[in-house]
């Protein structure tokens, strides 16, 4: 059972219970919807971008603990970053989630997001973790929707 306990770590469960930056904000400059075709999960990301800096990052949606925690941690990590810095972290995150990556891969800059590293052992759940990131990338690029690859 240890794999399972690693997946549903305290941090993850805590973010799931108390998601940060959750809910539709009053104003935003960018928005996109993420759709997971396989299971029907949906997540909406709302951004306020000013001078290429992510001022506010919010999200809404109903989804599993992995997806909730991932989005919650992503919003915390993202706020205040420049777009360039954010895309750098997105690349790291993709590597963290890639099936072939080392089991104990860790990116200092990703902070608590590293807690998601075990997800890659659960192939059908990887998209739960990545959906919000793809949605956010879409929002930044001005695309209305994202589906996980």
């Amino acid at each position, binding site marked *: 059972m240890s794999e399972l306990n690693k997946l549903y770590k305290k941090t993850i469960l805590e973010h799931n219970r108390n998601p940060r930056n959750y809910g539709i904000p009053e104003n935003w400059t960018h928005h996109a919807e993420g759709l997971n075709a396989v*299971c029907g999960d949906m997540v909406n990301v709302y951004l306020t971008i000013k001078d290429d800096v992510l001022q506010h990052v919010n999200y809404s949606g109903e989804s599993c*603990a*992995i997806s909730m925690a991932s989005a919650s941690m992503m919003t915390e990590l993202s706020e205040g970053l420049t777009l360039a810095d954010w895309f750098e972290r997105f690349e790291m995150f993709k590597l963290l989630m890639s099936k072939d990556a080392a089991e104990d891969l860790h990116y200092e800059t990703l902070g608590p997001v590293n807690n998601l590293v075990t997800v890659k052992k659960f192939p059908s759940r990887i998209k739960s973790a990545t959906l919000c990131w793809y949605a956010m990338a879409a929002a930044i690029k001005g695309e209305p929707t994202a589906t996980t690859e």
Partner: protein
Amino acid sequence: MLRDQFPGLNIQVHGKPLVYLDNAATAQRPQAVIDAVNDYYLNHNANIHRGVHSLSESATELYEQARVSLAKLINAPSHKDLIFVRGCTEGVNLVAQTFVRNRVKAGDEILISHLEHHSNIVPWQLVCEQTGAKLKVIPMNEQGELVLDDLDQLLNEKTRFMAVGHVSNALGTINPVKKLIQAAHDKGVPVLIDGAQAMPHLKVDVQDLDCDFYTVSGHKMYGPTGSGVLYGKAEHLNAMPPYHGGGEMISKVTFDSTVYNAVPAKFEAGTPNIAGGIGLGAAAEFMMKAGLDNITQRDHELRIYAEQKLNEVSGLRVFGTAKEKAPVFSFVIDGIHAHDIGTIIDHYGVAIRTGHHCTMPIFQFFGVAGSCRASFAFYNTEQEVDVLVESLHKAKAMFT
């Protein structure tokens, strides 16, 4: 025991014995089906219908014998009324494109129900897009039953076709299809019944139902993947234009014109899934030997037991409480998302499906994104229900 004939059940998942409760997605196959597939590859490996050599003759014989077995299973007037297809989805699309598309024009209506699988929704949306016809929907109630109060208006002079599922894959509801067919026929409307989820559970008699078309997924009725049949009334099949062009479906080809072959060949262009068809025949024989009544009886016992056990889990809510239902349970548990439940109980060997089960409109109705679905087959056991329930308690413990 019948269960022993299903070798795919004898495996371990995360070190635990598999508890396979995802039968509505695809069933396990009995050894007889696996053997029939292998026997073709090992002893009768040839293409069919076109050869004069013995190997081709015996392969053809096996394939056509399978058609006869299936016709017997669903009591079709003739095996020639059965077209081999990849599965239900292809069957519905074939009817949509070759029977319905040419009969409807802008403003006409096609009637389906709120309980349909995407495979019995999207093909009709495509026809509507292609023709300007409108899709109408028989509504459902909180129990997951169809509401037939307004059927008389829904079936009106604009209605050109009706397509309804026999059993809901998401909720297990058994629809009153005979009554629906009768009502449609009273208005001169032909009817397709999506039998994907009925075949593994019920005795199906297409003549008694009097449906115009009936679609069957092989892989859900203990047959091979990529197999299935479409039953159609001979008068329709004979009148319909072909679907795919290719070998086998023609009598004569020149570059100027082509004469089509007779039904069912007209609809079976190209080399079919020969091994799959033969295996599906073996599945039909298996079911007739096991006895449809026994299967239905066993379904009933499992359903009663599971219903009771699941209702004892606090915070668990079952969607779909129709009086007539197959042993399929869609449920959610307060505070834990379906996918998390699925992942957790998988670690106890329990395989269920989570999500929208290709029936998004049903879950839009209930206002949730999806559910956990435990779907049973006759080979499941009461102990497996217990393992499911225990594992659900483990999931709850993890999240509190």
